[in-house]
């Protein structure tokens, strides 16, 4: 096939952006020493992407950068990215960054004869030389189209500019506003042919999700999917869900469930590290308590845990767990337990996934709890939720993170749970059974891959010591 994917051409150097995930899907970053076009509609995050590229270059890779803004003033740019934790004035003072606001307003300029844009070249060249820049951002150079009337001159000068940027050996990002019939309003893609990235901010069912796509990357393999991405106080991150290969490193290490007796039901040693555990049960059956046990014991060993709470606030969870004798607050204070609470409808599924990815990459927990997963169905169809969980489980496994997923059981046979079950290595079911005028709790290991697990239905109580397993039901002997 003529368009078969070609492995990375030897010698195609990449320039890391430091944007979490992006360097992964492009196998190293942007084409080094070449311009890349980043386009999208208003508010899609292209300026922030560009700024992140420069700031990371200056801080992480010792590559100073020049930010040329055609719309916003230096002060405005600094303010816009301050929310991402970037201190541009400090970088400017340290000589690692140069900002230049190029003001072009047609109404103020009379054209009297032949001209070129050598002034722009000189400015840029001077800035590059002054700080030894390796990276350049032009945001957005399309503004020039509104500033000059002679299109022939302008197009010729743009062509010359991109050639010149290559000669300078700088890696450049050129941003462009999304156009109607073309990729960008003024067809910038005509000049930048090495790499084109499209950003989108799409609203589906009243929920906004940011997406990124590498449209073109000459001479390099790259993921062609749409990837959700996130802009938050830590900057940008792209969720790379390229392949779902089943080639994770499998651990034989065990993680205790933190409940006396439960490990015994799980082949005597507890969960496998890096496995995924589903805890299902009816309302009030003790699912979150089981999760809290796991977190409590892991934090006690000095491991980090991330708790994604979609139903209750962290304060409420801590209070509730205190009532059964599990105090999670010290772990929060020590920073080993991090709660991430959000209403499911706050973002789309993709954004949730991106956020979870972001936290896992930055916080690097060894245990992750998602409590509960079914509420996510509120923002997606069951197949979307399934696909999201698949990707999330995949992510956890690739990082060797043990995941505990809490799910509500409502009907008799829950079809959705059955489909999720295939993603799970261990499934623990909690039950509330009415017997002789009392509701008794019991626990059952429905499945647990790779270990000889108990088939007993164990009664348990929820008391000051949390979950206390009772004796096995007599009926449970044998198989």
């Amino acid at each position, binding site marked *: 096939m003529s368009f078969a994917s070609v492995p990375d051409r030897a010698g195609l150097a990449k320039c890391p952006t430091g944007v979490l995930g992006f360097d992964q899907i492009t196998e190293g970053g942007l084409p080094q020493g070449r311009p890349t076009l980043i386009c999208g509609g208003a508010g899609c995050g292209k300026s922030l992407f560009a700024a992140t590229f420069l700031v990371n270059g200056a801080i992480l890779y010792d590559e100073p950068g020049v930010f040329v803004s055609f719309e916003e003033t230096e002060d405005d740019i600094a303010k816009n990215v301050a929310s991402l934790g970037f201190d541009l004035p400090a970088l400017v003072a340290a000589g690692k960054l140069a900002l*230049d606001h*190029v*003001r*072009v307003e047609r109404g*103020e*300029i*009379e*054209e*009297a*004869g*032949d*001209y*070129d*844009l*050598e*002034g*722009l070249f*000189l*400015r840029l*060249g*001077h*800035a590059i030389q002054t700080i030894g820049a390796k990276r350049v951002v032009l945001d957005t150079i399309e503004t*020039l189209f509104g*500033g*000059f009337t002679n299109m022939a001159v302008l197009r010729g000068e743009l062509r010359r500019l991109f050639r010149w940027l290559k000669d300078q050996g700088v890696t450049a990002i050129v941003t462009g506003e999304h156009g109607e019939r073309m990729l960008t309003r003024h067809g910038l893609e005509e000049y930048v042919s090495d790499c084109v990235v499209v950003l989108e901010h799409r609203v589906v069912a009243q929920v906004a999700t940011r997406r990124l796509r590498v449209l073109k990357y000459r001479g390099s393999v790259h993921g062609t999917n749409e990837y959700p991405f996130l802009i938050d106080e830590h900057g940008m991150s792209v969720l790379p869900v390229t392949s779902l290969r089943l080639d994770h490193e499998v651990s034989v290490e065990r993680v205790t469930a933190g409940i006396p007796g439960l490990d015994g039901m799980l082949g005597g040693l507890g969960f496998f590290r890096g496995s995924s555990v589903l805890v299902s049960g009816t309302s009030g059956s003790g699912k979150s308590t089981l999760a809290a046990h796991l977190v409590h014991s892991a934090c006690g060993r000095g491991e980090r845990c991330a708790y994604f709470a979609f139903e209750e606030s962290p304060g409420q969870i801590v209070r509730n767990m205190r009532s059964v004798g599990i105090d999670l607050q010290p772990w929060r204070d020590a920073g080993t337990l991090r709660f991430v609470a959000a209403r499911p409808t706050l973002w789309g599924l993709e954004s949730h996934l991106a956020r979870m990815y972001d936290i896992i990459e930055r916080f690097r927990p060894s245990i992750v709890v998602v409590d509960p997963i079914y509420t996510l169905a509120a923002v997606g169809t069951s197949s979307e939720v399934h696909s999201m969980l698949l990707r999330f489980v995949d992510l956890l496994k690739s990082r060797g993170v043990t995941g505990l997923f809490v799910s509500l059981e409502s009907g008799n046979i829950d079809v959705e749970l059955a489909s999720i079950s295939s993603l799970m290595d261990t499934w623990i079911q909690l039950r509330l059974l009415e017997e002789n005028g009392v509701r008794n709790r019991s626990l059952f290991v429905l499945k647990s891959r790779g270990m000889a697990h108990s088939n007993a239905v164990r009664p348990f109580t929820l008391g000051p010591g949390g979950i206390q397993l009772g004796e096995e039901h007599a009926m449970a002997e044998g198989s």
Partner: protein
Amino acid sequence: MDAQPVKEVWELRLYVAGQTPKSLAAIANLKAFCESDGDHLYTIEVIDLMANPGLAKRDDIVAIPTLVRNLPEPIRRIIGDLSKRDKILIGLDIAPRQ
């Protein structure tokens, strides 16, 4: 007869980049224009950005050549080699804009 009015001094700066044909043409055209205009007194400063690239940012120059009228205020800008006299008149606010 009325007393001859005092001519206003107009302060102009011409930004060029090296000795390019466009730059040389702009300098020549500007001199010719100023000499032909008897209504104002002109001071002309030619700034070569090739020699002083830092000034391009300070004075916000993008196109070359650029003529800036610093005085009288407000500041006016004209770009090009100044081969079009009617445009210079408009740009300097001597003739009204259509």
